[in-house]
């Protein structure tokens, strides 16, 4: 167990790097995913096609392939940058497809009668959207969106494995490969690092879910 305490600063840096990757990727994928979801439910067919193909491509393609494509493909067409940003870009592209589906299923879960009733009462399109449809849709979106983000946090380990470096996965790799530390304690330290993020995250999600729950 001493290995965790002896290398505490290394673990802390790894933990912070993981958090950093996750923070950028979460913001990016939420924004992009919501935009794509907007495309997917838009009345304009070409936008719908873009949304649908986006989701089908990134949901069915392994994250590793997306990452390799970003890291080796983008420099080929003259886009250069730090590995860190290639990693974050890959994670954002991949996660945005899942965010999009979560948001879209939320919008679809609102019964058609709700919007019809809003119209019957005489609300305009914007009013019905902002006071009737979206408030209900957002609440339904919370649980699936939360699990998407938690999955994304775990997927950030792949970004680390793939060579961005400095995150929790990389710490485990360094300690076991180059320093030859005992594997099991190192593993426990790394896993704890992820659990510290995912378990409170899951609990907070459950709390939020109960808080925004609506009876239907």
């Amino acid at each position, binding site marked *: 167990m001493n290995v965790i305490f002896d290398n505490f600063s290394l673990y802390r840096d790894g933990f912070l790097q993981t958090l950093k990757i996750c923070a950028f990727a979460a913001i990016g994928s939420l924004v992009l995913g919501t935009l794509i979801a907007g495309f997917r439910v838009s009345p304009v067919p070409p936008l719908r096609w873009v949304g649908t193909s986006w989701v089908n491509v990134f949901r069915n393609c392994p994250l590793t392939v997306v990452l390799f494509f970003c890291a080796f493909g983008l420099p080929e067409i003259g886009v250069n940058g730090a590995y860190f940003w290639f990693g974050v870009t890959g994670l954002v592209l991949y996660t945005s497809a899942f965010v999009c589906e979560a948001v879209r299923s939320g*919008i679809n879960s609102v019964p058609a009668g709700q919007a019809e009733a809003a119209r019957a009462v005489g609300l305009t399109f914007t009013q019905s959207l902002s006071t009737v449809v979206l408030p209900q849709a957002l609440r339904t979106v919370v649980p699936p969106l939360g699990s998407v983000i938690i999955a994304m946090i775990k*997927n950030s380990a792949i970004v680390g494995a793939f060579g961005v470096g400095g995150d929790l996965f990389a710490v485990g790799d360094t300690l076991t490969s180059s320093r030859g530390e005992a*594997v099991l304690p190192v593993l426990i330290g790394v896993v704890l690092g992820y659990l510290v993020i995912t378990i409170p995250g899951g609990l907070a999600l459950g709390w939020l879910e109960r808080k925004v729950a609506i009876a239907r």
Partner: protein
Amino acid sequence: MSTSVLYDAPGPRTKRRILIGSVIAGLLLLGVLALLALRLDKQHQFDIEKWAPLFDPSNEQFPLVWQRIGEALGNTLVAAGLAVVFSLVVGTLLAVTRVTAARWYRWAVVGVVELLRGVPVVIAIFFASRVLPQFGLDLEPLWFLVIGLTAYNSVVIAEIIRAGINSLPKGQGEAAESLGLRRGQVLSLVLLPQAFRAMLPALISQLVVVLKDTSLGFVISYEELVRVAGQIVQVLSNPIQVYLLIAVIFILINYALSRFAIFTERRLSQGKKAATATLSATDVAGAGTGGGG
């Protein structure tokens, strides 16, 4: 049409607006694609020597490249198949113990389930390849990959099956008990067969996750598609073309699997309209997206 909640049926004026919007969006889309193509062309990505080894049978490297890709695809499918079978067995056991066992034991199972769910798959695979040899289990990389994938997916499948059992009407179990069946019989004869049936679409969707996750074998040098693609790129130095091909292979297989899941879902819900609802593939999408790359 999925948009019915948001919009009225379009009238003549809206139809015209939608048409204008479509034209503008279409033009923008074409513009973006054209810019991308120009960029690719400028960087010589359309040069024949980048594509020929992959798509021109008369190219001297063509047979070797496709032989390697074929082997790699085989390895990927083998790893995915083994992982699914093991996950199903272990997952069923976990689900059954969680439903039937004594309380303290059930808590232990819940603990293991929650722990494994929180661990990234790639770390499970990586450390399986590091920890197990220390306990004298010196296996091929294939088995480390399968063990890592099973550790995560068996837990997810256990949750799917448990949801399936819980979705059954209570009367099913009660009727079986009142007939005098023992607990094990109630499960194996009455509950599990129905749970599997209800959960079939979700289980097929989980296949997609497993298949995608086999690509994590690259961290332990298992020769699956992504790793072999890397080797090909080192020789031919055409990453865009090779990774595009690999992506297309994955997308085709996974898209077919997802369509199949939706098809089974429709089939099942047609078969028994009044009976228990089939838990749709999308209902447990949260569990599905738990999977990694």
